[in-house]
């Protein structure tokens, strides 16, 4: 189980933004989806997830809205803003450059 702190710094932001690219989601669903897509490799802890969400919201990259969840409870849904989409493109780009650089070294 890799801890979020084990993630490369700033990667959590990328994961959240990427996850929200599809559709607005609440916090629990974001965590679940990251776990699912990464085949349980990445488990985001609440202690990291919510501060990250709040920070991203403060940056105006995502915005929050209260809505009904599938079990009829009020839940806070996050969605990407325009600025968030641009930020996602930037972070994806820099992640790709970083990871290809790292793999190049690791495989050399």
């Amino acid at each position: 189980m890799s801890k979020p702190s084990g993630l490369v710094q700033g990667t959590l932001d990328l994961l959240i933004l990427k996850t929200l690219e599809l559709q607005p989601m609440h916090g629990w669903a974001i965590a679940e989806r990251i776990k699912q897509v990464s085949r349980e490799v990445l488990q985001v802890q609440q202690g990291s997830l919510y501060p990250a969400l709040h920070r991203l919201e403060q940056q105006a990259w995502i915005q929050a809205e209260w809505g009904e969840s599938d079990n009829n409870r009020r839940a806070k849904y996050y969605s990407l803003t325009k600025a968030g989409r641009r930020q996602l493109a930037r972070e994806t780009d820099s992640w790709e450059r970083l990871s290809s650089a790292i793999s190049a070294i690791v495989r050399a």
Partner: protein
Amino acid sequence: MRLLLMLRLRLRSLSQRARVERELEEELRFHFDRQVEKNRAAGMDLTEAQQAAAREFGHITQHKDECRDARKISILENLWEDSRYAVRNLRRDPFLAITATLTLAVCIGANTTVFSIANSILIRPLPYPGSDRIDWISERTGPAQQDVGAAPDYFLLRDRNRIFEEVATCDPATFTWTGIERPERLDVALASASFFPMMGVQPLLGRYLTTDEEGPKTPPVAVLSYEFWRNRFGGDRQIVGKTIAIDRLPRSIVGVMPQGFDFPRGAQLWLPNDVLDRASQSFPLSATQPIFTVSIIARRKPEVTPQQVTTEMQRLSFAIRAEYPKAFQKSGFRSDLMLGAMPLQEYLTGQLRPALLILAGTVTLVLLIACANLANLLLARASSRQRELAIRLALGSSRGRIIRQMLTESLVLAVPGGLAGFCLAWLSVRTLNAVKPAILVRYSAISMDWRVLAFTIALLAATSVLFGIIPAISAAGIQIHDALKSAGLAHSAGRAAAGMRKVLVAGELAVSLVLLIGAGLLTRSFLHLVHTELGFPSDHLLTLRINPVALSMGHDYLPFYSQVLDGVQHLPIVRAATLADDPPLSDNDFQSTGTIGVIGRPLAPQAERPRISDVVVSPEFFHTLGVSLQRGRIFDSHDFTGIPAAGRPEFLRTEAVMVNEAFVHRIFPNEDPLGQRLIFGPDEFNATWTIVGVVSDIRSTALGADPPANIYRCTCAGVPIYRRMAVLVRTSVPPEAAIRAIEQQVRAVDRDQPISDVKTMDQRRDAALAPERFQLILLGSFAVIAILLATAGVYGTMSYLVARRTREIGIRMAMGARPPDVLRMVLGETGVLVVAAIPAGLGSAWVLTRYIRSMLYGVSALDPTTLAITSVALAAMVFIASAGPAQRAVRVDPMTALREE
């Protein structure tokens, strides 16, 4: 967009803390519940599922904290926290909080009040659409701009100018409302038809004047002001079409102007100007013809530059001379006439500007003193907080952070004072509007708007930085090591702070000295004015004006006035009565003047001849007032007999006149004036005046002005009396008691003639002193506040210095110093303050008092007596303030002082 969103979120986290907290709680709870659900779906029972979720979830409060941190907005949050910290801190120091609030309330209140006045009158545009394009146009001969123009100027401007949309005239006049029980004097404006369109204001009811309502054939109509309509006609909405008798002529009311349309100020109604007639108006060919003056106002076309205005005015000035060659060439009269334009607002408020600037300067200086005082208090406080600050520094606070926190504290300290100051200003503005002191009488009511609020807030912020910055920097400069090591008294920082405090106090003293000198000069000047002799006894003297209802243009009112005078003289309570064209010290700025030449001397060109004012009085004038005859005799009706009453020439070929001593001093310093003959006005006027008597001087125009050189002409000389005259009555009873009887006499001659401007001479004298008294009271009270603040500053600083040196004093005493030595040491420190402050104060006064020179009478702006007295007074105050601390120093018990540390 993104910035806006961020700002909104930040404000929300700050302002709706409770709600944000609730939402965070709910969000986390939702997550937890979903986890429990998921665990149950995986087959756990409820407790098991909850425990597993809780394990996975971890410490919920910690998560919340982290979320809060993520939301944290450093500067705003810090500001908020610093403020709360500051409030807590200040609660522990109520003395500081109360002192700061009181001083700042007074100082910010005073500054805000002065700003409100300036804002209402000088800054805020006049309440007419596009009022910045309205100009006041007047003639000038020589350097002085006059108030008015002449009718031909108006016609030429109207027809030939290239830069104005609309040119209009509007002249204040007084008329009488007749046909009512007690005829009443009304303030009226005679307007050209273009006046209302030029002002750009639509009537509230009915219409305003139309283009054919100007000149001699105008129908008798009137437009009412809102106040007159509301107060005297009960706001009757059916008023249009009704009539009002003005000077016995029924006029039909055609319209009512809206509230706030108040030009010329105080006008109750506007009438068409029926003498504004192109055909009959020219410049007079001689000074014997009356000149028809008009006030000209015009609206500039948009985007006309000041440069274009100047050029156009010059062009038109030459055009006028070309248009009226006879008037300008033949007589040489006003050969240097020019037209000038200035913004209407500037024209209306120009007189107030210097007085307001002085006032603003004064309150700013007082505010500076208050700031120095507060800085001093904060410095004292900072030195007692050195340990706390040192600990914060040691724990990693940056020095910038400390400065920010200290500045926040001074802001918090200033806020209640600022609020109280704003309320105080609101009260003062209300009081000023109710009392209407002399300098504000001419202007509309003062009001406070968003600009005043913005000013107060800006002033509050500036003030808190001003008094907070020195203590903040000095606090941040603490050496951690020293401060923590030495118990209570950190000498290195303490010495710097003590030096700074002395500098601040010396500065305060210097500024107070400037204000004291200003107040001292005004006091001396005021005392001069109070003790100025009018030149005649002012008791038992009643003065009033009669503004007779128009009989016809050019009608001679002398028979009417003679009858009135005769009736008044025969009242038993009247000792003597006279006619004069103006009461002494009247507020009428207009003085009839003309140039004179002495027959038998070479005649200078017109423009270089002395200009003298001519005053028309009846022969009883000198006796009634008590002006003594110095030489010769007083003219009387015998001087003018043999001249047929009807068809009198306007000026006699030779006329007996009297002059005053100032005249003799100026024109005949070494000759006998009696029997000298003068020519008055232009040469072709061809009439000579013979001096038959010399009387003593009186101060007729203003208390502060030297008596002008006067020529007295007699009412019985056939001088035509066109309209307004004053009646001066010496009574044997208190003058107020004679008013009714005199009014009845006037009404007995003509029941439609009201008397107006009824004042005793003492009241006139009092009113003439009012502006000076007002200035003196203001500047004086601010000087008192300043000196009290500075004295408090001295006391505080000396106490601090003595407390700081208690140990040293103890040692000295233990070594054998006597109380006088200690006293000398403390007073030596005080002496340093005085020695630093007085030259600085005198130097500043030397620079600054020139600005009040125009307000001084009989005293120079650098009057040595005032400078000496105020300096000594300041020094005395300083020593009195240090007496307490000095006594404390003398009473230091060496044993206790040494044991304490």
